[in-house]
């Protein structure tokens, strides 16, 4: 009995503790207030004067005819029908792309929405929901008119009352939106104003040449939500019940951790231009699009071979040769691919010494590093920090790329006074397209006399390590020196999007010249001027060792040959796989 008394006493004590400490509840989501980020210093710089007519950085707007709904297109068209089963790259934790920064969330939710603009096969931003747009002579006012008949999946019409709060959400949540906001009028009522239900104006306080190009971003462009959802806190997931878009597919079911099932939106009205990647006509031929979560790489490929599913998004590169030789499958390559690189903690000694960084740059054999990822058909060497094969490809400064010069590296180390202190290289153990590069890099650096410490940790732990600030009052302090990583390419990259150029987000790389070049690029309207600035940024990145790119690798997308419609020959994925304009051949 005495034991029972002690048990009861312990229980009462625990409850008392709970009542004392558990007084506050986690806030429920509330409409976001315009919580502004720290104002970009460059926003106070006087705008560059220009009287030149705006040189569009995108293709001329194509007036959209009022088209037929998908339902009316189905009669007599054999392509309609079937279920496409796609295996996701990873676990889908959110279908709210505004909230989650993960690729799998963006890829899995892509067809739920119809954004204002989307990229074509040349990564040029083309109108999608937008019917017509124009820029004022002074480059300060953009006028957009959306196509008629745009409807959300809940049956409500898409109007400017939904678009404006959606754009405000974009300006809070995404770096590209944040930059747009810095260039826009301060007063929300002035910067975005509805002219009528289908037309609205965006007003800038100084010219900004990237509005339309950024609107088409596959991962970080603005999504158009119903107004009641757009005003929710963008730093919280909107929730399963609010996953309402106006795209060619609607969400039918989401079994978290198992599969996401989309069904065709037969009320959707595609554009009438030929489909080109995500631009033009986006026709949902499929009855169902099922996105599966299969954790094991071997199981993904086993199920593809047995016909359990039809497409595998981004399996291990090791399977490439086997699948390319298989008679029943094709393999699409995601080009131009991801930029494998080394990140540097510039303000952590001795990485704050330029000669040390230059020594590391000189020691590296990029070809050997990229070879560690696999088949040569799946990677290429490239000195462009904004990706080869993209809009802003630049080779300026390439003489500093892939030097593979151990003698030069040793000389620079001696000049720098390097005394053998360990350099910590963060290299995750569980990331197939990063892990091998770390081992090669370590060996190359040790060969020139650099002591490299490479602690074992998984990717999640590595990401957390990046957030550690050994000096609480110094946001640029880090407890490591370098890290292996890659920079994704989802249709477009430029100096504004690549935050490290401007040192945003407390990035240890703080270079005033680069910050100024970045803002000049943001203000530039003339494509020739933009190109000149990109070249200068590229060269400066190499000379100051902003980071060290090795090359680009291509994710693979093996799929059954009965799946038709992937662009190009040989098949390619342009930024992200699109499952509109894709059908199953019986």
């Amino acid at each position, binding site marked *: 009995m005495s034991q029972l008394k002690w048990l009861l006493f312990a229980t009462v004590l625990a409850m008392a503790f*709970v009542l004392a*400490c558990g*007084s506050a509840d986690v806030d429920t989501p509330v409409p976001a207030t315009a919580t502004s980020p720290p104002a970009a210093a460059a926003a106070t710089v006087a705008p560059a004067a220009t009287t030149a007519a705006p040189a569009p950085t995108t293709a001329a707007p194509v007036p959209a005819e009022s088209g037929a709904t998908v339902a009316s297109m189905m009669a007599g068209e054999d392509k309609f029908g079937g279920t496409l089963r796609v295996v996701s790259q990873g676990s889908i934790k959110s279908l709210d792309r505004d909230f989650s920064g993960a690729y799998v969330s963006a890829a899995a939710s892509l067809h739920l929405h119809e954004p204002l603009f989307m990229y074509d096969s040349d990564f040029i931003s083309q109108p999608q929901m937008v019917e017509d747009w124009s820029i004022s002579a002074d480059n300060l006012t953009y006028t957009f008119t959306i196509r008629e008949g745009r409807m959300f999946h809940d049956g409500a019409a898409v109007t400017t009352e939904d678009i404006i709060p959606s754009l405000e959400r974009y300006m809070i949540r995404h770096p590209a939106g944040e930059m747009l906001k810095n260039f826009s009028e301060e007063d929300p009522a002035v910067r975005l104003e509805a002219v009528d239900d289908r037309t609205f104006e965006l007003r800038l306080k100084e010219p900004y040449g990237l509005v339309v190009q950024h609107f088409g971003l596959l991962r970080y462009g603005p999504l158009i939500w119903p107004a009641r959802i757009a005003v929710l806190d963008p730093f919280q997931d909107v929730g399963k019940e609010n996953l309402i878009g106006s795209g060619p597919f609607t969400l039918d079911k989401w079994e978290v*951790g198992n599969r996401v099932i989309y069904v065709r939106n037969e009320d959707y009205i595609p554009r009438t231009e030929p489909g080109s990647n995500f631009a033009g006509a986006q026709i949902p031929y499929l009855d169902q699009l099922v996105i599966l979560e299969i954790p094991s790489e071997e199981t993904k490929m086993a199920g593809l071979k047995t016909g359990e599913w039809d497409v595998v998004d981004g399996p291990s590169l090791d399977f490439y040769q086997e699948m390319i030789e298989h008679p029943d499958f094709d393999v699409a390559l995601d080009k131009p691919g991801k930029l494998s690189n080394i990140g540097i903690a510039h303000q952590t000694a001795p990485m704050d010494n330029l000669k040390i960084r230059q020594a590391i740059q000189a020691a590296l054999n990029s070809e050997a590093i990229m070879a560690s990822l696999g088949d040569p058909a799946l990677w290429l060497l490239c000195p462009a920090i904004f990706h080869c094969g993209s809009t802003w490809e630049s080779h300026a400064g390439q003489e500093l790329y892939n030097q593979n010069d151990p003698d030069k590296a040793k000389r620079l180390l001696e000049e720098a006074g390097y005394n053998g202190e360990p350099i910590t290289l963060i290299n995750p153990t569980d990331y197939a397209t990063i892990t091998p590069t770390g081992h090669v890099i370590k060996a190359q650096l040790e060969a020139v006399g650099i002591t490299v410490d490479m602690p074992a940790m998984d990717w*999640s*732990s590595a990401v*957390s390590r990046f957030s550690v600030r050994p000096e609480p009052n110094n946001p640029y302090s880090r407890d490591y020196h370098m890290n292996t*990583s890659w920079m994704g390419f989802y249709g477009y990259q430029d100096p504004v999007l690549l935050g490290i150029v401007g040192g945003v987000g*407390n990035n240890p790389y703080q270079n005033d010249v680069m910050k100024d070049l970045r803002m000049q690029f943001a203000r530039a309207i003339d494509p020739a001027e933009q190109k000149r600035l990109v070249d200068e940024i590229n060269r400066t990145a190499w000379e100051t060792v902003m980071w060290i790119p090795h090359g680009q690798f291509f994710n693979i997308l093996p799929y059954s040959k009965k799946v038709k419609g992937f662009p190009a020959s040989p098949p390619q994925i342009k930024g992200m796989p699109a499952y509109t304009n894709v059908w199953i051949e019986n």
Partner: protein
Amino acid sequence: MAGYVLRRIIATIPVLLVVSLVVFALIRLSPGDPARLIAGMEAEEWQVDAIRESLGLNRPLPVQLGIWLKDILRGDLGVSIVSKHDVLDLILQWVTPTVTLAVLTVLFSLIMALPLGVIAAWRSNTWIDRTIMVFASFGFSIPVFWLGFMLIWLFAIQLDLFPAAGYIAPTEDFLGFFHRMALPIFATGIIFMALITRMTRATVLEILREDYVRTARAKGLAENSVLIRHALRNAALPIITVVGLGFAGLLGGLVVTEQVFAIPGLGRLLVNSIVARDFPVIQGMVLIIAMVYVLMNLLIDITYAFLDPRIRY
């Protein structure tokens, strides 16, 4: 008996409290920032801070612990900070595949292991006994993931007899459910079967040396009656202990099987939550698993009392 059960149930409270404190401390102190993982590598610090604040992760740890414990007392395990789904709903959604796989694995193992164990004991030190024990040792030593992949390669890819992976609820397609579960059950069941076979053999072998067994044989009872009604029945207690604890272990330990065969069960949920540092889900799942272990122990003890009249609480 009722008093004993009540005492044991009350005794689970401090056990669960200790488990809660330990798991809370371990996951909060281990490296991992869910806010940064959610925001992405390219997000700025202020955006990560905003997410951290919206999720309540910037509160002092004792406050976070207090909130969580208070919610538990109301039966609320919280909300996933990643998917925003209710933790209890997530667990209930994911528990069915794991429980069905665990139950079927145990049944399969018992059906195979009990006869094998009894035969091995009955024919101890013969080639039959040695063959069964080699098989049991082999089964115990095989890594589940290797066996799973081999089964997929042979029966799914080469012979096209079974699906490679995936799960269908029995309510959706009853035969399809068993068709898909055949390989996972075999992969996990082999190990469990090996364990029970060895346990059964050892226990039955000991019982067969008892005087009452000699008496039963002397009375002229048929051998199978001696083996089943006397030996196996008396061997039930330790076997039940192993089966009970093994079943509880399977609920969290099927993670490898679930990963290989893409079954959306509790093991996968736990792994995904750990990778994403989804604290509420991890805490809720560990609490549930601890509760299952404790209740399973209680169930075993109660079962003892039914099987053995000499045991009274």
